[in-house]
Each structure stands twice: as C-alpha cells, then as structure tokens.
C-alpha cells in the first residue's frame, strides 16, 4: 500500500496511507502514513462506530496539511474497542458435527446451512447488505458444491468461467461469509469470538479443515494451490 503512495504522488496526486504494519511503512517510506494499532482487516477501526472511524480518517487526512518531510509516519493513539469480547454475545445454535467425516460431514454441513439461513436473512435485513457473492452462486448451491467434495466426488465447476478448484475456493469464501454474517445478528462480538465459533463449533469449520488436508495431498496442482486459502494460518489444526 505504501508503494502505491509513491506511485500516485509521483504522478502528482497527494496521498496518505493508513498503515497496519508499521515496519512495512518504515521500510517503504511513503510520503505520509498513519499507523493504526487495529487488527489486520480493520484499517478504519471498529465496525458500527462512526465517531471513532471519523477520528481515524481525520487524523490520516490531517497529515496532508503538514509541511514536507522525508517520510511522515504518525501513530493513532487508541485501540479498537471492538477487539474486546462481548460477554453477552451468544453464537447461533448449530447441530453438532463432532468427529463427522465424509458423507456424514457433508450432511452436517448442508443441515447447518439450512439451520442458519433464517439468521443469515435476518442479518442481511439488519445490515442492508451481504458480502456473499464471490462465486456467483446462492449460499445453498455453494453448500451443495462443497458437500460434494466432502463426499469424495470431483464435481464439475458450477461456475462457467471458473475451474473446479477456483469455484471451490470462492464457494468456501462465500460460505464463511454466510456463516459469520449469521453470527452478527445481535451484540457486538469481537472477531476472535466469531472465529472461535466458526472454527471450533461449526460443521463448516470442521469441513474446511478436512478439505484443506485432502486438497493439499491431492495430485491436482490446482487443488493444492487453492487449499492454502481455506483455513487461516492461526486456525490450522496439526496433522
């Protein structure tokens, strides 16, 4: 991101970067950057807190009014209050999928998605939006496609211009969004709370651990390549 600042400023467009990783900004020396202490993925800070977000933006844009320096990196002083867990938040109830594999896990996944559908719809209504849509498939079809892989099938791609492996990656992205969005109907859960629920308690979390392992040992290079994008590094279970 700090490199883009160089390229834009070189062309005469002033910029200020919001930097999440300070050592990277220090190395790349953008004209101006505001380092923020927030977790990766949240450059503007807490969701749903317009006043806080505006303070971040004003602090960043304010650097545009400073006089020329070699490279100006300022620090935003406040942490994201939404990193603190919400003790009142409760995840949606989902059917247990403990230890299920293969067809049983596929069935558990489809059942879970069906169970969460009303919560997801409620969440979409409350937020007036959804971030499901990368595969172009409705969530239920994403579930059916991923379930087929769990059963050991090698289904054709349901997306005309995507390989089966790429469609699998985006279907998985959509299912993660579907489940997580179902979890943010009420309360103010931290990302850690939502992640703990997804990866420890849901059939989708279990399914993705299985699929990751199966794709990584596949002889299909495209499956191996996409498998790295199923489970975050901090959530990968040891073999």
């Amino acid at each position, binding site marked *: 991101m700090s490199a883009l600042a160089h390229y834009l*400023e070189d062309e005469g467009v002033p910029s200020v970067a919001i930097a999440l990783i300070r050592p990277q900004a220090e190395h790349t020396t953008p004209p101006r950057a505001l380092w923020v202490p927030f977790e990766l993925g949240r450059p503007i800070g807490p969701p749903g807190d317009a006043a806080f977000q505006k303070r971040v933006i004003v602090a960043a844009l304010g650097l545009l009014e400073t006089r020329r320096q070699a490279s100006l990196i300022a620090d935003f002083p406040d942490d994201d209050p939404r990193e603190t867990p919400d003790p009142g938040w409760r995840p949606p109830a989902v059917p247990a999928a403990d230890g299920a594999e293969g067809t049983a896990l596929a069935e558990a996944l489809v059942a879970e998605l069906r169970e969460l559908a009303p919560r997801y719809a409620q969440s979409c209504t409350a937020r007036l939006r959804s971030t499901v849509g990368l595969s172009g498939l409705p969530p239920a079809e994403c579930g059916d496609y991923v379930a087929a892989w769990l059963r050991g099938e090698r289904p054709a791609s349901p997306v005309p211009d995507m390989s089966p492996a790429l469609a699998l990656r985006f279907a998985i992205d959509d299912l993660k*969004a579907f489940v997580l969005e179902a979890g943010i109907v009420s309360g103010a859960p931290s990302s850690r709370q939502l992640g703990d629920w997804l990866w420890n308690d849901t059939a989708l979390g279990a399914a993705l651990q299985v699929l990751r392992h199966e794709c990584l040992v596949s002889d299909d290079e495209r499956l191996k390549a996409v498998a790295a994008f199923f489970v975050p590094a901090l959530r990968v279970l040891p073999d």
Partner: protein
Amino acid sequence: MRLEKLPAAMAKRLAELECPDFTTTPWVEAKPLSERRVAIVSSAGLVVRGDKVFRGRDADYRAIPDSTQANDLLCSHISINFDRTGFQEDWNVVFPLDRLRELATEGEIGSVAATHYSFMGATDPVQMVDGAREVAGKLKADNVDAVLLTSV
C-alpha cells in the same frame, strides 16, 4: 496492528515482508483539507458485485463508483489471514465512503470523488506501477487532490 499480539513467527514474517525500496519520497503540496476532493484507494481486493473478482495476485485494479451501495461491494482479497468480520458488519471499516460523505457535509473535506479504486494487496507492488499511474490519471481527471489509501 500491534505485532506483539501475533505469534512471534507470524509477526516476524509480516515485519520482514519484502517491500520495494525507494531512494526518494515524492511530496505534493496542496490546498487546505476543507477544499480537497478525496478518493479512497484500497488494496483490499474490493470489487463491485458483478464485476470481475480478483482471482489471484492480479496486478490490475477495479473502479468503484461513488454510487456503489454497501450491498454491492465484495472483498476478493486472496489472503485469508486478516479479519473480514469487521467489513462484513460495516463496510466503512475498509471502505469508509459513508464517513467521507459525512466529512464533506460537515465541511472537514471539500468533496468526495466520483470514483474510487481497489487493487489486490497481495500482488508484488512493482507490478502495480502501470495500473497505479493509470489510476492517478483518472483521479486527476476527476480533480481529486487527496487519496486515502487503505490496506487490510
């Protein structure tokens, strides 16, 4: 990000991630913030629903018109090692268009650009040079004189 919150190996990898070297730092002086036209340029792999998603470490960019609704903005960044729940709950966490509009109404900034842009941040930045220069030309054509660069 407070890197000390991450496992040491991951923090080290992020801190030491290969980045381009620049021998100089360009600097454009401009008018007060209250008179500036502001655009967002994100490296979050954002795409408008229906547009071509980023499929890997693509070096090109996507345009995001000011008229884009929150329901029509998706994140197709290839990395899964950053939080997406903030963006899922509130798009302003990554793409603060509502906040910029409010700041324009309040007179903190002059106006909001007609079009914003997104790149794929996992791409080698050197490969983005041509796209970035093209975006700069489009920003100047829109009279933008302040860019808020947001990464994830």
